[in-house]
């Protein structure tokens, strides 16, 4: 594991304006995420966890401050530049899997590769590898509606890693799954972190999910409160 910072947030502020009202979510937020880290973010509902992930994932932009990824600023990119940046660097895993219902597993996994210059056969090769990684080679032609929640989330993980991004963002990836299935998903994330060097940030409400991470931070009212060291 290198000690280089993959992400740096510098004096970041995020405010939402609704009509005349302005809600401040973050003020003067500083944060570093090291390359190769597996970070769990916990915190009460409304504390800003998803908002933070959106900033890290380049889905949303800070009102103030700087966000640097791999030495490059992303807070001042245009919408289309950000889209390209996301495609190249970030894998997203959502609570409700968010697969395309009309596409089978392989076609779902292929989606991010449509944004590359790879040929159809090269894409298929990579899809196969990604599905093998999550243990779903035999489900390649199954539709999402024919799969369990855990299987769908595996497909989503395969989709997130298929284009080999450095960084994975997971927003409550096990929030909709039972304990055992959740553990399997979390083991897969752990594997991706340890064996494949993916840097992972995961939002979770579940303390036992957080145990799979290398470290956990707590967010409350837009601020990090002292991270407790969790002992297994």
């Amino acid at each position, binding site marked *: 594991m290198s000690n280089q910072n993959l992400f740096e947030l510098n004096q970041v502020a995020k405010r939402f304006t609704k009509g005349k009202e302005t809600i401040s979510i973050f003020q003067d937020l500083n944060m570093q995420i090291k390359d190769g880290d597996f970070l769990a973010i916990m915190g009460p509902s409304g504390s800003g966890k998803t908002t933070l992930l*959106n900033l890290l*994932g380049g*889905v*949303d932009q800070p009102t103030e401050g700087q966000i640097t990824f791999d030495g490059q600023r992303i807070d001042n990119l245009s*919408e*289309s530049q950000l*889209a*390209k*940046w*996301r*495609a*190249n660097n970030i894998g*997203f895993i*959502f609570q409700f899997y*968010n697969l*395309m*219902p*009309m*596409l089978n597993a392989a*076609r779902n996994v292929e*989606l*991010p590769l*449509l*944004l590359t210059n790879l040929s159809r056969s090269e894409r298929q090769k990579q899809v196969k590898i990604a599905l093998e990684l999550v243990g779903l080679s035999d489900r390649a032609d199954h539709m999402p509606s024919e799969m369990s929640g855990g299987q769908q989330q595996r497909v989503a993980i395969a*989709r997130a890693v298929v284009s080999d991004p450095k960084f994975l963002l997971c927003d409550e990836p096990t929030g909709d799954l039972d304990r055992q299935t959740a553990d399997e998903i979390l083991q897969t994330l752990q594997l991706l972190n340890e064996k494949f060097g993916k840097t992972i940030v995961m939002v979770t409400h579940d303390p036992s999910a957080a145990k799979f991470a290398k470290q956990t931070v707590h967010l409350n009212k837009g601020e990090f409160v002292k991270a407790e060291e969790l002992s297994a």
Partner: protein
Amino acid sequence: MKDLYLVYKNLTRKKMRLFLTTFAIFIAFLIFGAIMTLRGALNSGVEMSADNRLVVVHKTNFTNPLPYSYVNKTQAIEGVKQVTHANWFGGYYQEPANQVVTFAVEPESYLAVYPELVIEPEQRKAWLNNQASILVGERIALANGWKVGDRIPLSSNIFSHKEGGQTWDFVIEGIFRGAEQKTDTSYLLFHYKYFKETQSWGGDSIGWLILTTEDAAMNESVAKAIDNNFANSNAETDTSTEQAFNKAFIEQIGNIGLIIFGVVFMAFFTILIVVGNTMVLAIRERTAEIAVLKTLGFASIRIFKMVLIESCLLAFLGGLLGLGGAYLLIQGASENLARFLPNLVLDQNILLQALGYMLLLGLITGIAPAISALKLNIITAFNRG
């Protein structure tokens, strides 16, 4: 385009909806194709008529005959360039159901008045020289498989042959083509003289006169002069331009133009609403999916295009099926209607127009949902879901 599979999957994800919208578009373009073809057929007679050609018919009823003497009397009138005449033969080929439009005419003057009828010089000569021969229009020759040199029996449902029966035997000496694609070539011409000599009634009467004027500007004064000339005679005349004559004939069927416009407008207006509404709903249902695609890095403009391509594919799917249906319908109808509407063809013009309307339909029904997909904000979309 790599996204085409995605577009295709989106288009076909709800089979019933796809079927219903395709069917609505199918019907609209079926109507469009059929009605535009019908209009083209009705109008081609008007469009094709020369602007210095006048038609003289009996004033009381255009089916009443005129005395033969009118030919020379009309020729003598100031401003008249060339007069010819025609008789309706009421012909059919082999069976009464198989009617063929046949006129008995004075050959040389008829061809002079109708320069748009094109014949090989030798065939022309052969037809002029052989009294018992017939000149056949290309379309009708093709339809019946007739060639130059063939002998064909033609029967009349009006006249009798003086040697008994109602059937005349003709040898085909020539086949005429049209100078333009729309020129009517679905009729037959034979010698008036032969007609008079061989039919049992005898008598020297003609069906109507056709004449050209020295100049189209003189049409009205010449028409007036002709009608004045025969006023207070046994057979008063009604002279009008060929264009007006054809138009009046068509307008007996009703105000075709307005009806056609109304029908086509209603059909398109309906599908515009049906398909437009369907597209809006379809895209609204996919809000979360579009947000996911955007999150993965699909550019907004790319999703915009995907929605537009989907709505255009839908329009072309239904539209081409509809045109295909119209084509089959017209094929069937034209066999039965060939003698009334010789130009019942779904021509290139209508095809191009229809393709244009399909594209327009696709763009109009797709543009609103495409724009909302373009503008869709990832964060608000997820918050909503």
